[in-house]
């Protein structure tokens, strides 16, 4: 199947600190890849590099076969094809739920507001929050806010979604509704790269699981291979600790 995103020997440093040490990874269309690893292992950094929110120091990243380090690349265009969802939601507090969803299509894609609005309402309907369209984000529960944030990315009709520990900031009782939405998206063939600590979820939805340790891609395989038969000692001890 078509490769959407490809990382080749990506190196990222913050000063002296090498946060990614030669990571290679490819994501195919309609595929879900889960990134697991301890806190500080470089998951967030990897996702941000893929989105050009960080520049890399060596290696290359390509989207649809086009190298993102090419100087002809327009980062804003790249980001319009990649959705990103954050641990802390980052909804815009001064905009209503509906306007949060509309801001990308209207002000980045320059779509007509009336058209974009119909799409946005359809998306809200899908997560059962149509009646909250005109509320401000702080009136919503964490789980509702995060689902709105996911839908805000989807409104851009991105080729892939990057999700950075999207349930880590949630009250345990609210984790389920967000994971259910992601599972839905996975079944409908949304291409996703997901950093997560939810191992059961990763096992259920991932085509591939990638284990990062201190910026090194230690092991990659199907959930079956990683969770039941990890090859490396560090993978094994990590899984022991999170279980």
């Amino acid at each position: 199947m078509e490769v959407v995103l490809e990382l080749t020997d990506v190196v990222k440093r913050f000063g002296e600190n090498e946060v990614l040490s030669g990571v290679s990874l490819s994501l195919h269309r309609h595929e879900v890849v889960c990134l697991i690893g301890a806190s500080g292992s470089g998951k967030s950094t990897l996702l941000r590099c893929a989105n050009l929110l960080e520049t890399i120091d060596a290696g290359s990243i390509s989207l649809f076969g086009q190298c993102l380090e090419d100087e002809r690349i327009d980062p804003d265009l790249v980001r319009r094809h990649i959705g990103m969802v954050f641990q802390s939601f980052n909804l815009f507090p001064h905009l209503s739920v509906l306007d949060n969803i509309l801001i990308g299509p209207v002000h980045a894609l320059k779509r007509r507001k009336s058209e974009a609005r119909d799409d946005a309402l359809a998306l809200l309907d899908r997560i059962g929050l149509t009646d909250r369209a005109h509320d401000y984000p702080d009136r919503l529960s964490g789980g509702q806010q995060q689902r709105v944030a996911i839908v805000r990315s989807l409104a851009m009709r991105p080729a892939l979604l990057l999700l950075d520990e999207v349930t880590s900031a949630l009250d345990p009782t609210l984790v389920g509704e967000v994971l259910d939405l992601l599972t839905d998206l996975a079944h409908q063939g949304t291409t996703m790269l997901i950093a997560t600590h939810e191992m059961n979820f990763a096992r259920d939805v991932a085509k591939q699981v990638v284990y990062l340790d201190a910026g090194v891609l230690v092991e990659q395989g199907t959930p079956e291979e990683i969770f039941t038969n990890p090859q490396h000692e560090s993978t094994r001890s990590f899984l022991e600790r999170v279980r």
Partner: protein
Amino acid sequence: MSLTTDEGSSPTPPLLFASRRRRLLVGRRGVIASALSSVVILGVIVAVFWLAPGGATVRYFFFNPHLMWQAFVGNPRRGLSSVGWGLVTNLWMFVVSEVLVLIFGLVIAWVRLSQSPVLFPFRVLATMYTDVFRGVPILLVIFMVGFGLPELNIGFLSTQSPAVYGCAALTITYSAYVAEVYRAGVFSVAHGQLLAARSLGLTHTATMRRVILPQAVRTVIPPLLNDLISLQKDTALVSVLGVIEATRAAQIYGSTVFNFSGYTVAAILFLLLTIPMTRFTDHLVARDRTRRLAGV
């Protein structure tokens, strides 16, 4: 030591009433205490002024009601300008400079925050501008503009009235402060907001306009009002260019009749202008604090 909450196994529960002495300060008696202390403090201040050895002299030279009124209305026959009319000059200089400062400050902040390579030289200039004009005393800027520009002989720039040069000088200096206030406001918006906006593919300009600035406004308003209050007072400095505004009128009055009551009038008039603004600023700060605490 054991890690339990109930230390002793005392049979009686702890007493929760305030001690006899503290009772003066809590509850309804607190109101009485605060009223009493206000009266005492006010009394002491008035007594010091009234009973001081030079008290009567000060009252005569600064608080003479008849002369205060005379200074306020002025006396054209004796060549005395009115402090009241002078204040009108302060007021329009303030309004003109205020509008210009709010706009020009925003332009400078915008340039300093821009990322476009084309604007690089302007970024350097804007940085130098804020550094220089926050550092140079405003009085010197007023002198330089007010006496320098007319000397340059460049068309209409050199033929303006002193009050206009005064406004220009105030605008130049205060724009530097206000630009920094705007910039601090932008930095006060959580970094995640910027990340989220840019990940949606919004350009730098769209991110600023749609996401960052609307949120920055809230933190910016109180410090902005502070600078405007200060600007309002500093219109008095333009008197060094010979503009007859409130303080200058008071000075003329004082040196003619050998009495300072005109200064007191000017001070009171400035207070009447600034107090509503200081109160309003405090009100905004308090409201924002309550909202933040309520998590709105």
